[in-house]
């Protein structure tokens, strides 16, 4: 019935469906094309790359990779540094943001009326505008070339906090905390043993987001890390760009880019369902 109704007025439902699919396919092409070319080019040798464009992969992936690893860029160090910083940030940010959200959600104290709106207000202030003071602070503390100034500040992550708070409102009844108290559970234990497990889905989503944004972060690490051995992947990419790149073996350049991009894509494809839902949940509603 609906179908017939749709056909009578405006553009028919069928036509709209065709338009929708066409547009979606074009968009899909635009989203994936670059990564496909990246993959193809990472498998081709420098000579083949100079010869022109092709849609079929070649056989030089491993060769490019060995050349890159044995080259001047400390790729493995970069990978390990990126992993340390991102994993550290994800763990600290998620644990303490949940704790902050729990403080606001479960307790009634005098400063709450002031602190909650304050956190929401500073949520959007970008870190770049305090970068100058941040660099000064880090050098005063003697923490240049250290990962601490990249990991520890994520404890105060207003966006993660806000998401956790939203999630708690819908899944954590105060009566449960009350019941734990009656059973004699201490407040800290209640948080670790009862609240954290209940928050698992939200924790997973936010851990992924924090990990990825830290993995991709370029601005702050580039100001803090100067030692080649300490640099994270985005800084190495920038270094690759700054080098006289025409001298470079292009196969290696593509492998390096692929090396920074594809791990995230693979993890994303495995977890995509939760991530896409997570974005929707964290929107303005509520």
């Amino acid at each position: 019935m609906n179908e017939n109704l749709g056909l009578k007025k405006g553009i028919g439902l069928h036509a709209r469906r065709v338009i929708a699919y066409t547009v979606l396919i074009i968009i899909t092409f635009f989203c994936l094309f670059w990564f496909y070319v990246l993959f193809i080019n990472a498998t081709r040798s420098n000579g083949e790359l100079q010869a022109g464009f092709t849609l079929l992969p070649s056989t030089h992936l491993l060769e490019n990779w060995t050349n890159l690893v044995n080259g001047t860029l400390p790729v493995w160090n970069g990978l390990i540094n990126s992993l340390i910083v991102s994993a550290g940030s994800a763990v600290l940010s998620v644990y303490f943001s949940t704790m902050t959200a729990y403080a606001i959600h479960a307790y009634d104290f005098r400063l709450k009326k002031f602190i909650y709106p304050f956190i929401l207000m500073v949520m959007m202030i970008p870190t770049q505008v305090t970068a100058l003071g941040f660099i000064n602070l880090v050098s005063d503390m003697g923490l240049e070339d250290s990962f601490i100034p990249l990991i520890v500040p994520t404890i105060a992550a207003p966006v993660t906090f806000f998401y956790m708070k939203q999630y708690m409102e819908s899944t954590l009844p105060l009566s449960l905390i009350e019941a734990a108290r009656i059973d004699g559970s201490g407040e800290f234990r209640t948080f670790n043993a009862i609240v954290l497990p209940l928050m698992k889905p939200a924790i997973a989503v936010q851990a992924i987001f924090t990990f990825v944004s830290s993995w991709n972060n370029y601005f702050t690490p580039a100001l803090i890390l100067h030692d080649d051995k300490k640099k994270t992947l985005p800084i190495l990419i920038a270094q690759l760009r700054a080098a006289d790149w025409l001298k470079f073996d292009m196969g290696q350049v593509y492998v390096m880019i692929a090396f920074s991009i594809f791990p995230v894509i693979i993890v994303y494809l495995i977890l995509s369902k939760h991530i896409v839902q997570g974005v929707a949940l964290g929107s303005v509603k509520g």
Partner: protein
Amino acid sequence: MRKSKGKVVRYNKWGYIFLLPFILVYVVFQLIPLVNTIYNSFFENYMSGLTQIGPNFVGLENYEKLFSGGDIWVYAKNTIVLWIMCFIPQIILSLLLGAWFSDVRLRLKGARFFKTVIYLPNLIMASAFSMLFFTLFSDGGPINSLLMQIGFIDEPYKFLSNTGSARGLIALMNCLMWFGNTTILLMAGMMGIDTSLFEAAEVDGATSAQVFFRVTLPLLRPILVYVVITSLIGGLQLFDVPQILTNGTGDPMRSTMTLIMFLNKHLYSKNYGMAGALSVILFIITGILSLLVFKVTGNDKRKG
């Protein structure tokens, strides 16, 4: 833990204890740097050759220099132009896709697949994505050879040497990276609209275009305002993509130099006075925009 008496008051001190890590870290790594940044903006402090000038207190001189220098206007304009070039296609696309995905009658198959695909670029490392575009669109790169192979052009088009195409590439990358996120936000908003309104419009014989413009769009206004302002705040922070694409030069002719790239330049050359003044200006602008977001989401909350 004593459980019986004075329970509420006794427990509530834990609110402060649990807040402590956040407050401590926020004060040390955000508030103190902010104060330090503002403080530095009133001092002359830079390297002239190998000699360190300052720090000497100069009052508002850094701000005067910043605005009379003229560069800031050029870079502010670049930033806004790049944001508009990215935002307009992005919002149109997102509204369209959001409406399609949330349209029950349309029953699109594979919506999950498409949502996964459009969100994918958001998670890509901006610097690597930018480096990828730099190699793909370089004069001898794959895009040029592809265009020549299909006979579209006779000689390589210099994408990165023309203002329009250089800006276009930056806008394209940002649009690709952010339209999926915007689509999902708008879709969540559209799903929240009472379906009886759509049914009523349908009974009244409204076309899908009429439903979209007369029902969906007005009801979506709070979320749209939120999307516009947060996107503008994000746009002001534009850095990774143009920085890597142009190797920090903002070429051609500084037409892709953004405000944060300008800040980054001052930070690297250790001109802390100017960096401070520029940071304070950016802080004030983003602060005002943040207050607007705060008001919008605050209003939204009342509606549930």
